[in-house]
């Protein structure tokens, strides 16, 4: 046996060893390799061609699913006739002239989307239609601009009980708006967080019946504005206190949409309630009491009528009391929480109507 260093010398001996790999055997293998490669190339070409043909088939063949039965020519005709006039006036003239005389002779099914895509701002023509068709859609877009997280409010209205409150949770980082549903007894139930946005004071049905109340929402100096939207496909009014901060945010939001519809148009469509005209209502001994001294002179009031925002009368007992010192008050009982109109009718038939927020 050699010493370790001598193994290095053995390396040189390996150079003289016979490898049993002759030039002839190598050339034989080269020929074999060439033949195999040629076969691989043929197989690869065949597979690539098949793959291309399959892709082409999927890309250019029409989808096999049938046109939905619900879409008929009559539906399309109805839709076209129901387009509001102002939408058509905003369509460029050359578009209208290019419309064929009978636009519903052939109804082609649009390609169905194969996957969901991330939401993106609507492009101008579609937004224009969306703005002009109904006020509800218009308000929806303003709410979106105000970062109103519809999903969160839908979730809250699903879980909230009739006597539960929604409490705004203090968030020092100010990166989120967090709300907590609190039970009547004071137990916190669920926490919901969303992007920072102005907090509504309450959400009511279109008739004014309260669906969700944010604790401490309506203040004595409240001047409220409501935006219409849909939660779970039900129309609702989202009430905001028209504070200077909210109005500034509102104008910022509407200015982004200015190119499409002026902020004035949006503002005009808002439902407004000015509680400053009267003192806010208060709950005293289980009854709603509202001092109406500042609402005008009602010395000869003979009747108090209540109606919801839709104008439907609310069957409830209401009394008008005149104090000795000139103060007057209306005591309401069994009025559902939300927003309602109070109408005071005088002896001479004159009436005074004003809104009231019922806690």
């Amino acid at each position, binding site marked *: 046996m050699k010493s370790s*260093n001598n193994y*290095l010398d*053995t*390396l040189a001996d*390996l*150079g003289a*060893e016979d490898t049993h*790999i002759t030039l002839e055997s190598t050339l034989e293998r080269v020929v074999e*390799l060439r033949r195999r490669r040629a076969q691989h190339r043929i197989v690869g070409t065949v597979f690539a061609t098949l793959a291309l043909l399959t892709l082409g088939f999927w890309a250019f063949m029409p989808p096999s699913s049938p046109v939905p039965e619900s879409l008929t020519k009559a539906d399309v005709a109805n839709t076209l006739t129901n387009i509001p006039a102002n939408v058509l006036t905003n369509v460029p003239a050359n578009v209208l002239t290019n419309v064929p005389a009978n636009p519903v002779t052939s109804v082609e099914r649009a390609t169905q989307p194969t996957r969901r895509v991330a939401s993106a701002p609507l492009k101008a023509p579609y937004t224009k239609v969306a703005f002009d068709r109904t006020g509800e859609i218009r308000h929806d877009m303003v709410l979106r601009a105000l970062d109103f997280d519809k999903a969160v409010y839908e979730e809250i209205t699903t879980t909230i009980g009739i006597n539960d409150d929604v409490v705004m949770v203090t968030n020092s980082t100010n990166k989120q708006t967090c709300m907590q549903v609190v039970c009547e007894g004071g137990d916190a139930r669920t926490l919901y967080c969303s992007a920072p946005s102005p907090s509504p004071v309450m959400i009511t049905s279109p008739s004014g019946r309260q669906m969700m109340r944010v604790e401490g929402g309506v203040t004595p100096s409240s001047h409220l504005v409501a935006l219409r939207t849909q939660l779970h496909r039900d129309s609702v009014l989202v009430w905001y206190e028209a504070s200077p901060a909210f109005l500034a945010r509102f104008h910022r939001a509407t200015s982004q949409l200015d190119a499409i519809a002026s902020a004035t148009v949006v503002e005009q469509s808002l439902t407004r309630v000015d509680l400053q005209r009267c003192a806010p209502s208060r709950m005293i001994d289980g009854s709603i009491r509202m001092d109406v001294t500042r609402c005008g002179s009602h010395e000869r009031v003979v009747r108090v009528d209540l109606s919801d925002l839709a104008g439907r009368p609310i069957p409830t007992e209401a009394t008008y009391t005149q104090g000795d010192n000139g103060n007057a008050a209306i005591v309401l009982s069994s009025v559902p929480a939300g927003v309602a109109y109070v109408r005071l009718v005088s002896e001479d038939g004159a009436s005074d109507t004003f809104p009231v927020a019922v806690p």
Partner: protein
Amino acid sequence: MQRKRDDEAFMAALTKHHDALARFARLLTRSHDDAQDLTAETVLKALESWHTVREPDAFRTFLFRIAHRLAIRHNFRHRLFDRIDDGMHDTFRTSEPSPERSTDAALVRDHLKRMSAAHRESLVLVDVLGWTLEDVVAVQGGTVGGLKARLFRARQDLIRRTGGSNEVK
């Protein structure tokens, strides 16, 4: 006619370096069959790119550079697909003509198999085939200094594996 001339020139050049190439392949791979595959593949690639060789003297470097790259790919595939560790290697049947376990050459070859590819290749080119450092650098790339360091570590590794001291002259 031109093609025939090219093939003849290629064969003349290949004949001159074939044995060295086969030896190089044999010492870089684990079995006789692998060595023959590596040699044949190198020759085929060299033949396909023969028209790019302008200086006949550069053929050796050209040929061994192809073998070097193929060996790297071969080792990479082995690392990916072979889950057999070196300790189990001896238990498998091999295409070796006749394992001469008692000779020093067989022992050295055995240790070479267990070395890293870079160390093994440097040792084979310099110590087995007797190439100059500059020629090896032309095949492997890098610098002469780097090659010297690789050689030093490879020799130390071989000595350590054969159970000797770390002195390398």
